[in-house]
């Protein structure tokens, strides 16, 4: 997927007047936010777990060369291959070469954010390969020629009847003649169509939630079972993973998995957690003949250098966006690239470049909710403040969005967005407050403890006054 993070404002404005989208993302508040709050308040150990998760990730990042080489040695010892990719182009070339060497025609894919980040599907399709996303949500957005709008729920922006029409158009060739709107029937079609693809696949590509140095395993977390069919039935399994995904031991994965399921879905556990290690063993009746891992840098070593290192702790749970009033007002597509919401507002400029993402670090009210819910305690508002500063230093900021002007000023000059964000912030505040009083006592990144503390919009008077003060300043 090519990065289009410029134009946030225009896309945000469109999103605000898209009723279907508003209804869909509105459901996140009642769904994931409430479920997470329930799961967390049921667990007295949760704060200790967050601290442990943060510590594991920090320790691994502080010694990343050690753990990556330990991990590599284990993969190799168990018959797998490890490839190192400096950037997106490198990563695509490595994977294209493997596909070409094994004479691949059909490629199945489990959900992988990194593969979206490096634009893998386009690269493989340009080589004439049939590439099929197998996660139901990813499959739907692939058919619709769209991008995922949420890292855990890629189809959160799509209504059931939009999906029904899409399937009616694309599934006729498989004998599904009738337009159906029942979710179970629609998923039944996906199951039936993709079952054949899993068996036909030459190469299966998955991501990795974690890479385990101790065993050389990649860990994938799913509810559908598509990742397992992808990795087990194809002749060749390729894992794509950022270099920050490695953790030392199996025990460390257990700590992080407890955090991930609760933070992402508000559940104790997902249906499937799979540890895959190398190609099929002697005597095995199934499993891939070849096992490859592509370790992707693509800007991560740059983040490792200093202020942005904590961002590499991210376990891609999506909690920060589920609790972000801006994300909940405008949806994921407004962010213009693979990673939306607060984590995306940091990752996109870091990976795609400041010049391509000037507005994103400003699409934030610094209300601090993201940091409160982040399972690995990433100080997202601090990261965003840093980015604004860096942008200013590098001369990328023009006009109103200048460093030194409060975040709410950026929002306040966009009345429609401002009102939507305020409403949403109050809504999430109520949800968090009702289910767990303890959040109120956590230190916040900024002085805005609840939506009510947000300065009320002053209409034209305010805007005029602000514009005037700007001219004078």
């Amino acid at each position: 997927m090519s990065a289009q993070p410029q134009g946030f404002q225009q896309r945000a404005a469109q999103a605000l007047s898209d009723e279907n989208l508003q209804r869909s993302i509105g459901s996140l508040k009642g769904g994931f936010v409430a479920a997470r709050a329930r799961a967390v308040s049921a667990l007295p150990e949760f704060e200790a777990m967050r601290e442990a998760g943060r510590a594991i990730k920090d320790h691994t990042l502080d010694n990343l060369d050690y753990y990556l080489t330990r991990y590599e040695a284990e993969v190799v010892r168990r018959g797998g291959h490890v490839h190192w990719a400096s950037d997106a182009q490198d990563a695509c070339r490595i994977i294209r070469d493997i596909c070409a060497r094994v004479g691949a025609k059909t490629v199945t894919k489990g959900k992988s954010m990194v593969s979206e980040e490096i634009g893998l599907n386009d690269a493989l399709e340009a080589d004439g390969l049939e590439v099929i996303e197998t996660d139901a949500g990813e499959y739907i957005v692939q058919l619709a020629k769209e991008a995922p709008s949420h890292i855990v729920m890629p189809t959160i922006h799509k209504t059931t009847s939009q999906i029904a029409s899409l399937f009616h158009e694309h599934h006729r060739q498989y004998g599904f003649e009738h337009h159906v709107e029942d979710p179970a029937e629609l998923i039944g079609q996906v199951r039936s169509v993709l079952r054949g693809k899993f068996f036909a696949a030459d190469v299966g590509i998955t991501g990795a939630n974690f890479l385990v140095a101790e065993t050389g395993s990649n860990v994938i977390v799913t509810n559908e079972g598509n990742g397992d069919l992808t990795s087990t039935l194809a002749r060749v399994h390729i894992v794509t993973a950022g270099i920050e995904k490695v953790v030392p031991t199996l025990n460390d994965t257990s700590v992080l998995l407890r955090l991930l399921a609760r933070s992402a879905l508000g559940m104790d556990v997902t249906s499937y957690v799979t540890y895959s290690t190398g190609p099929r063993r002697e005597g095995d009746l199934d499993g891939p003949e070849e096992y490859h891992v592509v370790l992707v840098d693509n800007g991560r070593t740059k983040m490792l250098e200093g202020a942005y290192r904590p961002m590499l702790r991210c376990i891609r749970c999506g909690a920060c966006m589920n609790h972000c009033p801006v994300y909940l007002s405008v949806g994921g597509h407004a962010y213009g690239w693979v990673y939306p919401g607060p984590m995306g507002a940091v990752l996109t400029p870091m990976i795609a470049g400041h010049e391509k993402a000037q507005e994103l670090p400003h699409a934030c009210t610094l209300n601090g909710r993201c940091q409160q819910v982040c399972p690995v305690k990433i100080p997202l508002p601090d990261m965003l403040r840093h980015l604004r500063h860096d942008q200013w230093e590098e001369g990328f900021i023009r006009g109103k969005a200048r460093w030194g002007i409060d975040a709410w000023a950026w929002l306040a000059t966009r009345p429609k967005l401002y009102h939507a964000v305020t409403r949403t912030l109050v809504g999430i505040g109520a949800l968090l407050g009702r289910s767990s009083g303890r959040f109120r006592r956590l230190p916040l990144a900024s002085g805005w403890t609840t939506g009510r503390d947000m300065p009320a919009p002053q209409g034209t008077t305010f805007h005029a006054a602000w514009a005037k003060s700007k001219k004078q300043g």
Partner: protein
Amino acid sequence: MGRDKILQRIRSALGESHASEHDRALLDARMDQRPSGPKVALGAERMSQFLTKVIANNFTVERLASQQLLVSAVRALMPDDETPDISVAKAIQSLGWPADWKINYGPGRHVERLCVTQALAGIAETGSVVVASAPDNPTTLNFLPDMHVIVLRAEDVVDHPEDVWARMALENWPRAVNVISGPSRTADVGGIIVRPAHGPKRVHLIVIDA
């Protein structure tokens, strides 16, 4: 070459003093010690928590006094008027499966009504079942059938995932370790939970007490 370049970038990002002999010894020690972090306290006695959680995860469960009863338990899961056509992991081939059933002891096929595999462990904390791949326990049988039947010995239920890792030999770490916590599901259409997505619609757990 990408590898050396990336490792060099990492080392320079982390600073020169990094990864001395002393540091390496500490890191090696951490790998050997495998420290474990905070766990979720069990709310009940191990087996009762396990069964409660497994049911909450939408497994169906039955307990058998002995493995001799397994074949008739599997028979009862299928319509009376059909000759069973199922796949069974070789690990449990010797349990006296009737000669007139059609039984595949190979890897999973395109269409599978029912497959039976053997569990390595059960986890009380989350109500999960761990199935490891082996020549006699193929992974595809866990994901292709409409109904997945998992056979678990009661004595293999442990408190936490960390207890499973402690029991496994890293040297012979299996190719695939599947931690299964319910049927396949998705909420990608309209946010409504649908079972199944790509994997089993029903997971039936048979706990063998002796």
